[in-house]
């Protein structure tokens, strides 16, 4: 796999970000290509932001929210789920692979589950890189403006 590859993980402030914190304290190991972005709710991640990350060359994007029924804002994670289905399907229409996106649920007490999700994502992208090497180079379609 291309080792410059980055995986952007949008983590919900109330669960998965706390889980990432706990994973750090517990010294759990995960891939160095993960870049965590803290958001207040997984439901606030607009599909456009996922697409933007991929267009700018991220290998994969994850959205990690609270378990169903445990949203700090009552229904944010359900909205995120509805959006995640759309994102996964639409990314293929836009020329990306569905493996490049994952939506998953992690509570603040489950750092192992979070790290397992990170591992799964990196392994999946490594497989994808073998099958479709061009996909993960990123930015191949960006052209420089002249003048």
């Amino acid at each position, binding site marked *: 796999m291309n080792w410059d590859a980055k995986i952007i993980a949008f983590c919900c402030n109330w669960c998965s970000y706390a889980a990432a914190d706990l994973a750090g304290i517990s010294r759990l190991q995960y891939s160095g290509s993960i870049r965590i972005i803290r958001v207040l709710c997984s439901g606030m991640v*607009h*599909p*456009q932001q996922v*697409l*933007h990350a991929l*267009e700018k060359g991220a290998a994969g994007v994850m959205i990690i929210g609270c378990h169903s029924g445990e949203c700090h804002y009552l229904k944010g994670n359900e*909205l995120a789920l*509805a*959006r995640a*289905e*759309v*994102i996964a*399907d*639409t990314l*293929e*229409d*836009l*020329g990306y*692979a569905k493996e490049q996106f994952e939506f998953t649920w992690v509570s603040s007490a489950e750092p192992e589950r979070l790290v397992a999700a990170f591992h799964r994502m990196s392994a999946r992208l490594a497989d994808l890189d*073998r*099958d*479709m090497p*061009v*996909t993960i180079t990123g930015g191949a*379609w*960006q*052209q420089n*403006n*002249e*003048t």
Partner: protein
Amino acid sequence: MKPKLSCEWLHGCSGCEIALLNSGELLLSLFQQVDIVHFPLLMDHKYTDGAGDDEEVSLPEADIGLVTGGVGLESHHGVLKAMRRQCRILIALGTCAVHGGIPAMRNQWTAGCTMETVFSTATTEAAPVPDAVPALLDRVLSIDEQVRVDVSLPGCPPRPKMIVSVVEALAQQKKLRLPYKSVCETCPTVRTGKGQAVIRRGTAKPEYTPDEPLSRMRCLLEQGLLCMGPVTAGGCGGREVPLCLRSRVPCRGCYGPVHEGGNQLLDMMNALASNGIDYRTIIDRKSLLRFSGAHGRLRPEKKRRGGQQLS
């Protein structure tokens, strides 16, 4: 001295030029305010002095340049760069110039695949690709992918009054505010907040009472028709009712995305999902990018190693 206007036509259909000529009396007042120095549809002009084949395109200098159509052929590069060099202000006129437009629909296949489909498929008798046809670029680009653009005026075609008022405003150095909201902004139909949970087929008709005005008809999207209004830039009807809605037809999205960098397909899917509409009932989702396929939004499908299609 009057400002000079130069107009160039690339990978487009001449609809934008005709929209400009269709602006009625406004056109006469525009002609009094600017001098047209280059306009392939109206007047003859040689691009080179004929001395050699590999020389640069020469275009007259101008204060305002209008470019319609995207970049789809090798020869368009030179003409577009010459326009940029010679024009102080460059306006991308029409959806093709701004977002790729209809020609950019071919970006979802390779150029070779497009030629093959056009010239030899089951529906056409196998014919060789004629030599006289200029080779297609790999994909259709919008002009801002190639050069710096000062003003973008989307539309298929743009509203004639808008074209004239923009050129006039630039000629007189006045301020002008361009429309920046979506089509829904000026749509008078009734929105109740509760609609169909599915999108009906394109052949479905909206429900309305023929004698009643549009302001008594229910929002077409709520009736289950795929109206692109929420994700499409407004301005087609000026401050009045959007053009397609006047005929009670759903918006097709011809003005391109509302925000620069927006993606009509993804935004529409997001809007549907957020409102509990089953987006899977849409047939041929990719066609929502029919007007904005440039900027790498539409691409050919990638093949996986071992020939397995990306499914």
